[in-house]
């Protein structure tokens, strides 16, 4: 079986196993699994409204953050801070959109999108600097900054950015003139989804066909070799990719405010930045495939909301599926590794190098 086909089979198999696990969990918890899964399907794909206002709407922030995570992981940067970067982007976009006169229309929208992008990059600049300067593990620093972003947003919507009546913990509503245009009349689907898909395709092309993309892939594959044999300034590549990753997530936050919520809330994101990790891994870190993965998780989330409404099943059950998918993919990655190794040894290739690359023990 060709490698691509095997990889596809493993991915599809993973999703099937995860949904089977969900069915088991539902049955175990005493729900009618068939009814619940039916509600999930209807909520995701049952009607044009469900597809446009449910699945596609949810898939959009997942695609932005999924691309952010894919790009970072490809380069060997474990940015799990897309959640915080998304919030930073949403906050900056709201602040800029509210500060400008609504009569400026599209100019405000564009400025807000730019502000969100920059804010996401700025939020990612902190862990990027901590890693470059002090070697701080970005997994920890980005998670810490997620909590900081959440608390700062919580303060802003009760303080400087609170709506004029000072009753609700949210910002003022954005004027209709500055919102993203509707893509399909009568649904909630906005132009942001097109922007996300275009970005995914552009990113796929950049990684595959440009010199910059080559440097990014080489740095991720083997930074030491890229630096010594390829004369690639890997430190610079890592820093730039970290910023770009934050920018993508920040733009996703801006799009969410300008296209969906129209105001800043503390709980604007139901964990898009975390689900993004599952999106990226399911897509095998390929930006093009991330479109499909984001759609799948968007459908799962839209379906979960319907499942809660129609079958009384808590939507959070679906997050178990997300966790299972990541764990199963990691396990199947091991299966893939082993298969590749077996193939190499049968072809009489070089023996597998020892997996342990520890530097010599200091005295």
């Amino acid at each position: 079986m060709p490698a691509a086909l095997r990889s596809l089979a493993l991915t599809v198999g993973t999703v099937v196993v995860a949904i089977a696990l969900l069915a088991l969990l539902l049955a175990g918890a005493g729900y009618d699994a068939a009814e619940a899964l039916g509600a999930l399907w209807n909520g995701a794909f049952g009607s044009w409204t469900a597809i446009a206002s449910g699945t596609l709407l949810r898939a959009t922030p997942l695609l932005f953050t999924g691309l952010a995570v894919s790009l970072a992981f490809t380069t060997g940067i474990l940015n799990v801070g897309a959640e915080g970067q998304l919030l930073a982007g949403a906050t900056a976009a709201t602040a800029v959109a509210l500060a400008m006169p609504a009569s400026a229309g599209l100019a405000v929208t564009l400025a807000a999108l730019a502000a969100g992008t920059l804010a996401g990059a700025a939020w990612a600049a902190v862990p990027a600097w901590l890693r470059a300067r002090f070697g701080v593990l970005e997994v920890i620093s980005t998670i810490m900054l997620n909590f900081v972003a959440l608390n700062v947003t919580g303060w802003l919507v009760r303080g400087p950015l609170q709506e004029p009546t000072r009753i609700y913990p949210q910002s003022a509503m954005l004027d209709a003139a500055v919102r993203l245009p509707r893509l399909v009349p009568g649904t909630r689907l906005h132009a942001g989804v097109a922007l996300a898909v275009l970005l995914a395709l552009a990113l796929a092309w950049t990684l595959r066909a440009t010199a910059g993309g080559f440097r990014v892939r080489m740095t991720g594959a083997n930074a030491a070799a890229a630096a010594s044999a390829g004369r690639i300034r890997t430190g610079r590549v890592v820093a730039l990719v970290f910023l770009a990753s934050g920018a993508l997530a920040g733009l996703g936050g801006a799009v969410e405010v300008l296209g969906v919520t129209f105001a800043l809330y503390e709980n604007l994101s139901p964990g898009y930045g975390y689900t993004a990790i599952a999106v990226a891994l399911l897509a095998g870190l390929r930006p093009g495939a991330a479109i499909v993965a984001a759609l799948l998780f968007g459908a799962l989330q839209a379906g979960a909301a319907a499942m809660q409404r129609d079958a009384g099943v808590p939507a959070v059950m679906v997050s178990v599926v997300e966790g299972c998918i990541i764990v199963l993919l990691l396990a199947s990655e091991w299966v893939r590794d082993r298969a590749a190794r077996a193939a190499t040894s049968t072809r009489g290739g070089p023996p597998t190098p020892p997996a342990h690359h520890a530097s010599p023990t200091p005295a």
Partner: protein
Amino acid sequence: MITDFLDAAVRTATPLLLAALGETVAERAGVINVGLEGAIIAGCFAAIAAATPLGAPAALAAAALAGLAMAAAFGLVALTLKADQIITGTAVTLLGLGLTGALYRVTFGDQGAALRTPTLPPLALPGLSAIPIVGPAFFRQPLPTYIAYAATLLACWWLYRTQTGLALRATGENPAAARAAGLAPARLQWLGTAIAGLSAGLAGGSIVLAQVGTFAEGMSAGRGFVAIAIVALGRWHPAGAALAALVFGAASALQFTLQSAGFDLPYQLFLALPYLLTLVALALAAGRYAAPAALGKRPV
């Protein structure tokens, strides 16, 4: 007021110390388990589920076992199947947060707010608790705090004064050499991972049983990641972890103390303080003291 401040510092430091001690052992064996957060929340859930029918001591044990189960999931993928430790840990964290949230809603309904358990009473150690100022803060605490004290001493002795402890540390520096010397690195890394899971579960149990008395989705609130920072700040030594945990406890306690003293500062910004402190601490700890050389490397 100083006693109140110290008391709050020790109380908030307790779960951090418990989790950091286990993670210290795991990291000395060369395993970094970012899934600690998932083990803590699993401990929280097990504690609230077991507290009412079984009582507090059994609930603490259940919490430790739940942490162990999460560590087993991590070990299976990261150690046995040799997947990347950091990504596996992230997945285990997501799984723990999702699974506990789902189970809580399924078991206790959407409200669930009614589910409360009385918190463990403080136990005053005779003599020690009579020391002025610090006595009541350190020695009039609920049971988990004393478990944390005992675990610190035990870890110091076990890691540095026993054959197994030496073997475990050797594994963390160079698994290949440890194996050549006739040790069993795989088994020692599993042992370290299991200890980290048990103590993270216990940490979760102590949050519910000694501090909050109830469960909320995502209530672990990043403590697993703070604990990993504490391990680095404590230079991979149990005693260092104890000091570092106390610093973090103090940062959180500052919020309560300043509020009760009437300072009108935005409370969300105080909530962000421990996370910011973690970043500063990691930057300060970086590079000056060597981490175990084989930390986070795929097993041989």
